[in-house]
């Protein structure tokens, strides 16, 4: 990191973008190029992650922009739109296109699309070692000659070819290149010529775009192209599409996609030699796959993997959480003894140190979870996990990959919400986000233990289990409801690549983990901290009065009638639930304070205020109502305030309704 100050302060004039299909080692190349000098943010207006970094070449600072992994420059997903708009913006002087050497055909589709746009491209023919093992040899010189761009063979994990790649990219940057022209056959070409002639009459269009590219994109039905042109061209387009279909018996879109693949097939023919026939080529990856997705073994292996992730996150994380808590208690004690002003001491100890502590306490499980998830993703198992569970999750209206966040939710909802990031489809992601808080996390367990111990002494296990089950059932019902309510008719296809298994690199996995963990601290952390301080203020104004007379106590009294039909219409319960928003286990501590008995005498104290029925309703409420502030922060981080607000509102409503039904239904059955 120790660079001359002049370089760091210098604005980067040259910009290199990285583009490529998913699972081709793009991230690894990005890490190699930029080292630790990277920054993760979001592309404007969307939740697609934007990674930027820089490297220094010949004393000059070069910015590197990592585009999302995509198969095409269409408008199929947010990722594709982001990548296409970025390339059109002309920000990058050159694009390094990472190509999987063992899968030239599909990878070149994106390359060809960029070349058609006239983008400066340098191809990194990555994982040439892996391809060679599979008996695939690519003639790089010939490939470079045919495509008219530099092609550099690389092996990203071993950093092979990086210097050559950078040198080639710097050579190409800012060059002006003729767009590649693919011939799409007589029927299409005739119509393209008409469209081009018409586009050429509009200097406004030809000033920024090549008329041929625009014409091709118009026939493909690209929304960006359609927005650029006027009525006359649109009319010609309709006419052209009709004529192509009439004359060739095929639609224009297919002909163009086929045209590109035809061009690519020719290149592959010329440049790729295969040693063995496909039948003999059962790679190690295929062998692993045969076991991992086996009809009988597939599910047990999946469950074992999930169990391992869960154990890794929480069994390893719990002692670390303990250390963090102990540290902040110690720090609080220290500060409390040092500050003499009572109000100030309370603010610093309970508000600020408590607030920071309640953010940092999530660090161990979040980092450990993301370490595990990064490993699963980078190794290629995550796609198989989705493949194995999709049948089941699909009936719930979810994607196979939704399973992981939901499972993690039983440990802690915060990393679970963050794990939804592995879902590419927005619809799947939001539905999963919204139902994850119903997974009964570890923090709710102390509440159950307290009430079950006091009211259901003989059937503790059964009652606690019923609450977990209640959460799952509500989650399933809500998932189905949201599917029809918000995303009706929206198709979320499952088409997904099952990438070859690879051993993840330690550095790559650690960087992956750090990015996600850090973004939690930065984004969700501020929200958590803010709410902790707010609640401190509410419970301490006016200062020095018992909780009952503080703002929060008065609020609790106001809320009493609302909770009365659910069986716990006391201000103490309302205040406890309010504090539960900080962290669900705070419900126990708060009840101890407001009943004035502390946590020890609580089990006997609550028997005076609750009946078994109202206790069960209260537990259901604790399970379902507003997720804790950290979860709200995480949801905001993954979506926006709208969805975070919705999550707060609807979970509160569901919690109240379920508690109401339990209490009133129980009374009708004579249980009260």
């Amino acid at each position, binding site marked *: 990191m120790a660079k001359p100050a002049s370089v760091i302060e210098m604005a980067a004039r040259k910009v290199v973008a990285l583009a490529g299909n998913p699972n081709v080692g793009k991230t690894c190349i990005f890490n190699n190029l930029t080292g630790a000098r990277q920054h993760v943010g979001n592309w404007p207006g969307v939740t697609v992650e934007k990674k930027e970094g820089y490297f220094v070449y010949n004393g000059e600072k070069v910015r590197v922009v990592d585009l999302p992994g995509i*198969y*095409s420059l*269409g*408008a*199929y997903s947010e990722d594709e739109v982001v990548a296409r708009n970025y390339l059109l913006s002309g920000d990058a002087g050159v694009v390094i296109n990472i190509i999987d050497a*063992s*899968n030239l*055909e*599909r990878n070149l*589709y994106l390359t060809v699309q960029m070349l058609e746009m006239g983008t400066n491209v340098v191809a990194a023919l990555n994982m040439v070692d892996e391809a060679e093992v599979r008996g695939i040899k690519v003639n790089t010189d010939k490939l470079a000659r045919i495509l008219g761009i530099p092609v550099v063979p690389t092996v990203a994990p071993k950093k092979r070819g990086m210097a050559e790649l950078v040198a080639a990219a710097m050579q190409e940057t800012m060059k002006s290149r003729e767009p590649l022209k693919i011939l799409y056959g007589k029927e299409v070409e005739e119509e393209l010529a008409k469209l081009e002639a018409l586009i050429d009459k509009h200097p406004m269009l030809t000033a920024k775009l090549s008329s041929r590219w625009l014409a091709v994109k118009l026939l493909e039905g690209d929304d960006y192209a359609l927005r650029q042109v006027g009525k006359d061209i649109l009319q010609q387009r309709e006419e052209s599409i009709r004529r192509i*279909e009439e004359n060739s*018996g*095929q*639609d224009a*879109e*297919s002909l163009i*996609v*086929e045209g590109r*693949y035809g061009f690519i097939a020719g290149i592959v023919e010329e440049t790729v030699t295969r040693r063995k026939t*496909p039948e003999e080529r059962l790679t190690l990856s295929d062998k692993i*796959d*045969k076991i991992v*997705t*086996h*009809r*009988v073994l*597939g*599910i047990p292996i999946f469950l074992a993997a999930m169990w391992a992730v869960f154990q890794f996150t929480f069994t390893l994380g719990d002692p670390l959480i303990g250390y963090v808590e102990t540290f902040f208690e110690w720090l609080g004690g220290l500060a409390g003894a040092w500050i003499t002003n009572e109000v100030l001491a309370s603010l610093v100890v309970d508000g600020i140190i408590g607030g920071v502590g309640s953010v940092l306490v999530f660090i161990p499980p979040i980092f450990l979870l993301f370490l595990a998830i990064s490993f699963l993703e980078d190794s290629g198992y995550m*796609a198989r996990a*989705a*493949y*194995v*569970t*999709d*049948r*089941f999750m*699909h009936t719930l209206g979810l994607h196979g990959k939704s399973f992981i966040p939901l499972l993690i939710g039983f440990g802690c909802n915060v990393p679970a919400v963050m794990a939804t990031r592995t879902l590419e489809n927005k619809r799947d992601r939001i539905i999963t986000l919204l139902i994850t808080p119903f997974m009964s996390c570890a923090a709710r367990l102390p509440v159950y233990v307290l009430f079950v111990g006091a009211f259901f002494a003989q059937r503790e296990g059964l009652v606690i289990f019923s609450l977990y089950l209640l959460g799952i059932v509500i989650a399933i019902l809500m998932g189905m409801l949201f599917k029809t309510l918000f995303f009706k008719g929206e*198709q979320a*296809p*499952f*088409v*997904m*690549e*099952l*990438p*070859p298994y690879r051993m993840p690199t330690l550095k790559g996995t650690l960087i992956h983990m750090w990015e996600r963990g850090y973004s939690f601290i930065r984004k969700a952390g501020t929200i958590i901290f803010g709410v902790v301080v707010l609640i401190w203020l509410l419970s301490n104004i006016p200062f020095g009065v018992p909780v009952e007379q503080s703002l929060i106590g008065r609020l609790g009294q106001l809320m009493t009638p609302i909770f009365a039909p659910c069986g716990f219409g006391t201000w103490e319960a309302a205040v406890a639930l309010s504090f539960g928003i900080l962290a669900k286990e705070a419900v126990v501590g708060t009840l101890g304070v407001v009943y004035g008995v502390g946590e020890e005498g609580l089990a006997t104290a609550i028997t005076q205020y609750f009946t078994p029925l109202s206790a069960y309703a209260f537990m259901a409420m604790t399970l379902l109502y507003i997720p804790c502030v950290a979860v709200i922060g995480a949801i905001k981080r993954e979506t926006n305030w709208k969805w975070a607000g919705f999550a707060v509102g609807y979970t509160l409503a569901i919690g109240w309704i379920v508690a109401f039904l339990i209490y009133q239904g129980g009374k009708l059955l004579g249980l009260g």
Partner: protein
Amino acid sequence: MSNLQQLSPALEDYLETILELSEQEKVVRVTDIAARLNIAKASVAQALSNLKKLKLITQDRYGPVWLTAKGRAYAAGVRRRHETLVYFLVNVLGVDPAIAEKDACEMEHVVSSQTMDRLVAFLESKRYIPIGEANVQETEKSPKRLDELAVGKRAKVVSVNATGAFRRRLLEIGITPGTEIVIEGVAPLGDPVEVNVKGYHLSLRKSEAACILVQPT
């Protein structure tokens, strides 16, 4: 045929024609059907869209027409009825073959399946016609939906019968007509399936695979 609702005579004729053409030609196109039946292309397209709705045929936009397993069975049934009637008229009643052919064309559409079944059984029992099912068999090589293809089998993509963004996605990731595709496996719970296309692995839900028509190789 009893589990399928009765089609209109015209649609039955279409099915029969497609079956005949598919036995003579590699692919059946709208133009061929129009020529054979001497009907305008536009009317053919209208009828085909009805058959498509009934899942008796599949057709890529403007592409070739393929009978589904259901459509093939139905068409075979129609033809069987036709042949039985002709046989009955000519060989049992002694009607002139040309007239028998014309009458059979009219009769086959109005006779109920029950009557037809009884007639066939009767003729068979009297040894008037050889015993046997409809004389069209599903062959190994006839086009089928990708989800009907067995694990380990290879096929070539014939058409992608989807629309909009989904169709585009399938085409762009390499499932284009003519591409070789292999079913690698089925997930433990029976869905989705794993396929190999252009040298890489892809998973598809069965409902999605059903949009892809393939020709086993």
